[in-house]
């Protein structure tokens, strides 16, 4: 069929069953936007390209589909960089379509020219520069395929301006042929047998789950397998939700702000089965001493994750949808034997849990942990929770009663402040009927607060809970602990921003909580409003996220704090 490059992109997005794109127009993508004028799918116009890319990311995390973002050349494209890097670190499937200057102008420092392909090479799974219109359908087909298969990730398709206008005979390929890309979904069954033998004779085994379980949507398979073993389970930040928070085998999050039980169990286990994890430094603490007594078994879809940070005794490369049931097949035959075998270890873990549970003291002000617990209770854990980055993120990870996979959307790898608000907007676009609740700090709120207007304009009922401590809490915590209490530029006391007024100025309902006795009433009110709401919650300025493993310390060397001090 005869059509222009711009029309071919719309048609290709239709072929990929895209229902919404996030974007911001500009010179190089004018022709594409002209074609978008007639497109059947929605386009969400954000206030900033960074908002658009985080929104596409939030959409992808919430729905499991590929997020699509469009931006113009030069500054439009470079404004996507933080969002692309965020998605890359957390393996989120995105396709970013950027305009590029016309082919004859490339390389001449033309107006709004930036080499976005070069810039995004280290932060994309793959990227393209399309200079010939005939290449467009094949490139888009590949881009979507690469983004969502194997270990997912962002793909940039940079399209020269004249390609949008050029016409050609369009045909969307039915299959992808890539000599150098064949994701391995099914691995080696012999290794599964070896894994089974290790688990069978382990005295103190521990299962460690991560983002890979969320991304592969294999939480049901996981839960099934875990219950057959009776083994204790810990999770990384990205694995939260894959098994219910209140599951009797769940010891909580591991790592820098992990629970006492999870960190102690990791230190003392003799076999550690890591499933869809990448042994990030925030998890391992001092790498050389991480799970020092344990044989490490590593399940991942990406062979390059094996032995990257932690040396694995056994590796199982493949999709969790394959590897977890394959292991289950064997375990279920000896389920009772295994449970029997680990009884004293399970008891030991339970003692750790009872000994030092997560706790906090009540004060005159609203405690942020109490807000998280209250929201958890009011929603019964059944909401899509989005966070920004910092102290509030860790309190959510520690205290929210997650029930389902894909229910925590958070920038775990890159730790991008400013991610939360646009990501919540994107999640709500993808899941219009689900409650989407954003926890965010007063620092992060000001990084992309312009996107509040988008929530109002598209009537996206996100609930934005601002933990307002008038400082950059996590950085201030480190300054308090490791920099002699010198609060270099982390106080926000100068701020004259009124978050209630800010919300109202953008057409969003604003509420405020000053005192603990207002918490229940105002939160209920906020959750009952049908449109978007911002709640400015005043919390204490000096408050630490605890437990904490100082950077470079061993996991069992925690600063505990809480009620027991």
């Amino acid at each position: 069929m005869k059509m222009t490059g711009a029309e071919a992109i719309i048609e290709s997005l239709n072929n990929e069953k895209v229902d919404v794109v996030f974007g911001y127009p500009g010179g190089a993508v004018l022709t594409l936007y002209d074609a978008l004028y007639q497109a059947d799918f929605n386009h969400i116009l954000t206030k900033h390209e960074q908002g658009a890319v985080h929104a596409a990311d939030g959409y992808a995390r919430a729905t499991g589909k590929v997020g699509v973002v469009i931006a113009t050349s030069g500054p439009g494209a470079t404004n996507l960089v933080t969002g692309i890097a965020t998605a890359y670190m957390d393996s989120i499937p995105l396709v970013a379509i950027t305009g590029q200057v016309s082919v004859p102008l490339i390389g001449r420092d033309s107006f709004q020219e930036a080499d976005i392909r070069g810039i995004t090479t280290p932060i994309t799974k793959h990227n393209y520069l399309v200079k010939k219109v005939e290449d467009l359908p094949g490139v888009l087909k590949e881009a979507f395929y690469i983004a969502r298969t194997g270990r997912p990730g962002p793909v940039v398709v940079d399209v020269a301006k004249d390609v949008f206008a050029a016409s050609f005979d369009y045909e969307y390929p039915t299959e992808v042929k890539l000599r150098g890309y064949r994701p391995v979904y099914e691995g080696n069954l012999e290794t599964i047998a070896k894994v089974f033998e290790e688990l069978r004779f382990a005295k103190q085994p521990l299962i460690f789950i991560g983002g890979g379980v969320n991304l592969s949507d294999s939480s049901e398979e996981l839960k099934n397998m875990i219950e057959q073993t009776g083994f204790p389970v810990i999770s990384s930040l990205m694995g939260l939700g894959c098994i219910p928070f209140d599951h009797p085998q769940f010891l909580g999050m591991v790592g820098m702000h992990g629970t006492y039980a999870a960190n102690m169990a990791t230190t003392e286990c003799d076999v550690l089965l890591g499933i869809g994890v990448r042994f990030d430094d925030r998890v391992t603490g001092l790498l050389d001493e991480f799970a020092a007594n344990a044989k490490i078994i590593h399940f991942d879809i990406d062979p390059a994750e094996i032995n990257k940070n932690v040396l694995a005794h056994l590796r199982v490369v493949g999709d969790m949808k394959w590897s977890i049931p394959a292991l289950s097949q064997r375990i279920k035959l000896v389920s009772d034997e295994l449970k029997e075998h680990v009884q004293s270890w399970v008891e030991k873990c339970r003692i750790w849990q009872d000994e030092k549970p997560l706790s906090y003291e009540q004060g005159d002000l609203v405690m942020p942990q109490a807000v998280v617990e209250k929201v958890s209770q009011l929603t019964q854990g059944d909401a899509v929770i989005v966070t920004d980055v910092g102290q509030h993120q860790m309190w959510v990870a520690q205290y929210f009663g997650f029930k389902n996979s894909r229910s925590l959307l958070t920038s775990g790898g890159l730790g991008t402040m400013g991610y939360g608000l646009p990501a919540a907007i994107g999640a709500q676009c993808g899941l219009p009927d689900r409650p989407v609740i954003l926890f965010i700090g007063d620092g992060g709120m000001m990084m992309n607060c312009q996107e509040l207007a988008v929530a109002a304009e598209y009537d996206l009922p996100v609930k934005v809970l601002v933990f307002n401590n008038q400082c950059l809490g996590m950085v201030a915590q480190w300054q308090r602990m490791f920099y002699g209490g010198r609060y270099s530029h982390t106080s926000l006391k100068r701020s004259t921003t009124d978050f209630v007024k800010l919300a109202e100025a953008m057409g969003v309902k604003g509420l405020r909580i000053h005192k603990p006795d207002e918490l229940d009433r105002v939160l209920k009110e906020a959750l009952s409003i049908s449109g978007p709401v911002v709640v400015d919650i005043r919390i204490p300025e000096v408050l630490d996220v605890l437990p904490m493993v100082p950077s470079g310390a061993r996991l069992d060397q925690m600063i505990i704090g809480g009620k027991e001090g």
Partner: protein
Amino acid sequence: MKHTLAVLVENKPGVLTHISGLISRRAFNIESIAAGYTEEPDTTRITIVVEGDEIEQEQVVNQLSKLIDVIKISDLTAVESIQRELALIKVKASAATRSDIINIVEIFRASIVDVNKETMVIELSGDETKIDALCQVLEDDHGIIEIVRTGKIALSRGPVPAKDQGI
């Protein structure tokens, strides 16, 4: 330990950017890199010499393999292979010193590819140590003006091509 990797990649624009970008981002220790066309027009072959222990070497292979453009990697250190590098050396040469240089060139089985009043250009192919040795002698006795080296290229012995070899 050094590993010589034969990396077969798609012959497409941007592939070298992806390879060099990855090496830089992962902070891999790369000693040399040499690229060129192959018997198949859509394939480029890159020879990379990596310095590092087994674990580092495994990471290099695994990370490079993740690149969409990388078709195949084989470790030529693990098999019998021929390894060569080409060097062009411009050395100071007057009428008086020329014959001595010619002697050295003959000993090394190198060849002279250019001569003028003040200099000579010597071409030598061989392994790294042989080139190093020639450079050392020329520098000590006559003085070198400039050197260009290709970086190592390598080919396995026997009938099995790299594309059909296990890693």
